[in-house]
């Protein structure tokens, strides 16, 4: 269980990026964080994975205080951040260096097969497309079988089709190992496809404004009325978080405007 307890973060330049954020995530749960630009979503993930320390409050994984990167917590950054001097296979195996070689090779091969990149094992990162590189980054985080996986807008740089593809893919992988997922996204559809719970954040200082439980059965149909309904709720909450008043009369307009411009 991941326990985020009244966490605040003030950067050295005085920016209060987070203030009093509390959140409990159970093992195997998928929590998605949405919110306007600069409301502290990336900051929250950096704190949870131990890259930065919170100014106040505490973050615990099963009772252990997180103050530095932890082996049971993995992260996929917004950019793939592959090491350009390692082949794809060695990038994926980066976190397995301490394992015996046969185990490492077989786990890397299995993971690459899982994301459909077996034929790319020996190429350099520069020879990958953006979507392939992001799949490699995802594999690198998954291959160590973390208990908690943090994803910071992992698919935002991809086209709509690849994105849907990778979302389904992520859910497949999740169904396999059931890690806890904490996902940041700008894409409301993505949030609803993935989430058990959606946290809507607001800025200055960054805090949680609203929590929306999505209890649609999986796999979720992106075209269904229930999906649309959930989407409307999330967009409305986002509009509120940006202090934009949703016009009650014309729900469609609100939806469109919100979808187009909320971030």
């Amino acid at each position, binding site marked *: 269980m991941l326990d985020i307890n009244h966490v605040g973060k003030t950067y050295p330049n005085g920016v209060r990026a987070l203030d009093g954020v509390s959140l409990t995530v159970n093992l195997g749960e998928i929590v998605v964080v949405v919110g306007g630009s600069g409301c502290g979503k990336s900051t929250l993930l950096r704190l949870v*994975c131990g*890259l930065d320390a919170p100014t106040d409050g505490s973050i615990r994984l099963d009772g252990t205080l997180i103050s530095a990167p932890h082996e049971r917590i993995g992260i996929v950054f917004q950019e793939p951040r592959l090491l*350009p001097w390692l082949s794809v296979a060695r990038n994926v195996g980066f976190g397995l260096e301490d394992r015996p070689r046969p185990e490492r090779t077989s786990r890397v091969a299995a993971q690459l097969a899982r994301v459909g990149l077996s034929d790319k094992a020996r190429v350099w990162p520069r020879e990958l497309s953006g979507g392939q590189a992001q799949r490699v980054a995802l594999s690198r985080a998954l291959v160590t079988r973390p208990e908690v996986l943090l994803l910071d807008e992992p698919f935002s740089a991809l086209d709509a089709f690849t994105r849907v593809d990778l979302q389904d893919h992520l859910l497949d992988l999740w169904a396999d190992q059931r890690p806890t997922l904490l996902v940041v996204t700008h894409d409301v559809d993505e949030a609803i496809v993935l989430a058990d719970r959606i946290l809507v954040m607001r800025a200055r200082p960054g805090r949680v404004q609203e929590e929306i439980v999505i209890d649609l059965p999986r796999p979720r149909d992106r075209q269904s009325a229930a999906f649309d309904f959930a989407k409307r709720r999330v967009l409305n909450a986002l509009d509120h978080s940006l202090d934009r008043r949703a016009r009650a009369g014309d729900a469609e307009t609100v939806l469109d405007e919100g979808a187009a411009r909320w971030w």
Partner: protein
Amino acid sequence: MTASIDDSPVQIAPKYRLGRWTRPALGLLLPLALAVFWELAVRFGLSNGRLVPPPSVIFTTFSDLWQTGELQAHAITTLWRVAAGFACGVAAGTVLGALAGYSGLLHRLVDPTLQALRSIPSIAWVPLFILWFGIFEASKIILIAVGVFFPVYLGVMGAVISVDRKIVEVGRVFRLSAFGMIRRILLPAVLPAYVIALRAGLGLGWMFVVAAEFLGASQGLGFLLVDGQQLGKPAQIVAAIVAFAILGKLTDWLIVAATTPLLRWQDVYGAAHQDS
């Protein structure tokens, strides 16, 4: 307007038709023409070629020196001095550069001093080195090492400081130790810059070996230069210069050849025209 649009393909096309070999050959045209011109000028008595010997005389001198084994002996002495000085300079420059890049405290501690020392023209050390280390090998090798040290130090320090934070964070997420971070992230990341620093260092090493051998050496290509001047043998001077050029180019090529396989991963602009 229309004329220039029509003309442009015609102007561009021949440039690309120059083949793989004609383009480098183009660069040889000027020196070859000059050499031929000078050779003919001396042959036809337009000049006696005493101070500026014609190519044929230089070639004869070169092969004479080679046949007596003199040239090889001098070249090996010089090569050994450069190698020893280069090794010392690279070792010191790499260690100090890596430390000053890695640790902010060490940077503040040693960098100002080293920068101050760097601004001294290194030849100015010569009298002091001779006083301290005598006129034999030690002072020469130390002078070369000093020359090699600074470009290597600067290159390594600058490269370590500018390693992408995002890549370093990947290492932190995987909980690398300080040693693991250096071996698996920092070293590979600075390798391209390191190769450039090594080549710059080697260039200075060759420069300084000449300076070192000007001061009381009885062996080495630099001695050959001084000797040629004192005995009035310009052909010998030019032959030594040619030997320097060959050795300098050869050792530089060695560094490039040894490191190219390690840098295949690079995704850089230069990769496209490196083979040509």
